[in-house]
């Protein structure tokens, strides 16, 4: 049984300029522990797909199942990481991480321990008391990742999380994310429009095409984890990257 099951999902937006078909009869299964990246040009419906799984949107038709249950709304079993970080600016890094735990009525002491555990996991143990405005972009996103991890979701949904970061920080964040993920495996659905990032992170790359949003190709990435520079610079990586590139840029 797949952990996430998207079955014949269509999502239509009614805007002032008419109907936009964001997703057109899309189906996708994601297995437990997989790292999936969704890649495609803007307008291909990748964010819509993520928000459907996250429960922030409802499908026009079709079904989204997580753990065999239809998604009825957002819930702590599916953590979401936003491109704009979405940290609560009035809370410290630690208080941000504790936010979800507080809602689950986790006792104070355990809350602090768990928050510190996940802040350490992302390398922010020394910034527990910092306010978001005192953190760099990369650090903010790390805090957001710790916050999502802390409530123990079975799925992590990441919506172009590194899109606002500079190229160097981005590569560092990719390595750090894989390291975190290998320490605590979660099923990850990760959106990007960066082909390198899509291939480097994923065990499967889902290539999407726009107008209407459809899955055009699914490409396996049979490269072993942990991944590092050798993998990034290997001919195998280059070959898969080329396939994904063609899928994204030359689909007809």
């Amino acid at each position, binding site marked *: 049984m797949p952990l996430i099951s998207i079955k014949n999902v269509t999502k239509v937006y009614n805007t002032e300029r008419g109907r936009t078909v964001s997703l057109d009869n899309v189906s996708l299964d994601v297995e437990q522990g997989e790292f999936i990246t969704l890649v495609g040009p803007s307008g291909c419906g990748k964010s819509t797909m993520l928000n459907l799984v996250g429960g922030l949107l409802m499908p026009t038709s079709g079904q989204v199942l997580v753990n065999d249950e239809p998604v009825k709304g957002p819930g702590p079993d599916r953590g979401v990481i936003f491109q704009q970080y*979405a940290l609560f600016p009035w809370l410290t890094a630690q208080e941000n991480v504790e936010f979800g735990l507080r809602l689950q009525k986790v006792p104070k002491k355990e809350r602090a321990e768990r928050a510190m555990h996940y802040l350490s996991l992302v390398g922010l143990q020394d910034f527990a008391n910092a*306010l978001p405005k005192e953190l760099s972009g990369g650090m903010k996103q790390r805090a957001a990742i710790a916050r999502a991890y802390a409530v123990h979701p079975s799925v992590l949904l990441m919506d172009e999380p590194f899109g606002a970061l500079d190229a160097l920080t981005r590569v560092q964040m990719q390595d750090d994310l894989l390291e975190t993920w290998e320490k605590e495996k979660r099923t990850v659905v990760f959106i990007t429009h960066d082909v390198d990032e899509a291939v480097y992170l994923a065990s499967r790359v889902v290539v999407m095409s726009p107008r209407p949003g459809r899955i055009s190709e699914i490409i396996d990435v049979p490269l072993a984890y942990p991944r590092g520079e050798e993998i990034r610079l290997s001919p195998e990586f280059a070959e898969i990257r080329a396939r994904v590139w063609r899928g994204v840029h030359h689909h007809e």
Partner: protein
Amino acid sequence: MTDRKAEPEALTMATPTAIAEDTEKGERSLKGLYVITFFLGIGIWTLSAVLSRNALIPTPIDVVASFAELIANGTLWGHTVTSLSRVTTGFLLGVALAIPAGFLMGWYWLARGLLEPWIQFFRTIPPLALIPLVIVILGIGETAKIFVIFLAAFLSCVLATFQGVRNVDITLINAARVLGAKDFTIFTRVVIPASTPFIFVGMRVALGASWATLVASELIAAPTGLGRMMQQAAQFLQTDRIVVGIIMIGALGFIMDRLLLLAERRLTRWQETR
């Protein structure tokens, strides 16, 4: 793209003061300038009062003397306390009602639909325009004055709060939802803190409106208060007393505004500085 284009322009425009403010030395010389301009202003005032040869234009010395006299005979204290308590009561009542009303309007379309037209309409009427009606109905006692001040404070603050709620970043609300927050929690733990900066702006505007309304209502009819004191002085052409009243009102308003600013800085320290 537009950002990049605007940058050089903004840079040249900001340069003269930006450089002075950037350095600590600049900060110090700015404070020095404040002192200089204070004495310069007093000097110009004195000079023009003397040169005008008009006995009705008081010099700073006349005003200080009058101030000392009013303190000595105890009247200034009484007027000040009355005015201050009117402003504070009206302001606090107005703000206390405006904040929940603004939240309701921002959060529930029903509340917005029922309240917003009235608020938008009454907002365009200066509260002073209501004074004749209020005096007829409520008389010239405390209730009438506090009511007009309350109205002024309420109308200034309610829309700011409403705007604050409307402006809460939807991503923050979504972030709370995916962490398991329901409506009530989102309201108390996200919407309220996120709109605090707007509420403070509203409160500061409300404070200004409260003082303006107070003085006007006291000028029209009141047994005591700073406005009454000035009105009385005017009948005896005691312009020095009028100036004492003006300075008192300015100083009290300024102090209350600074106190609010201090509270704002404390409570919204988390804001990114622009």
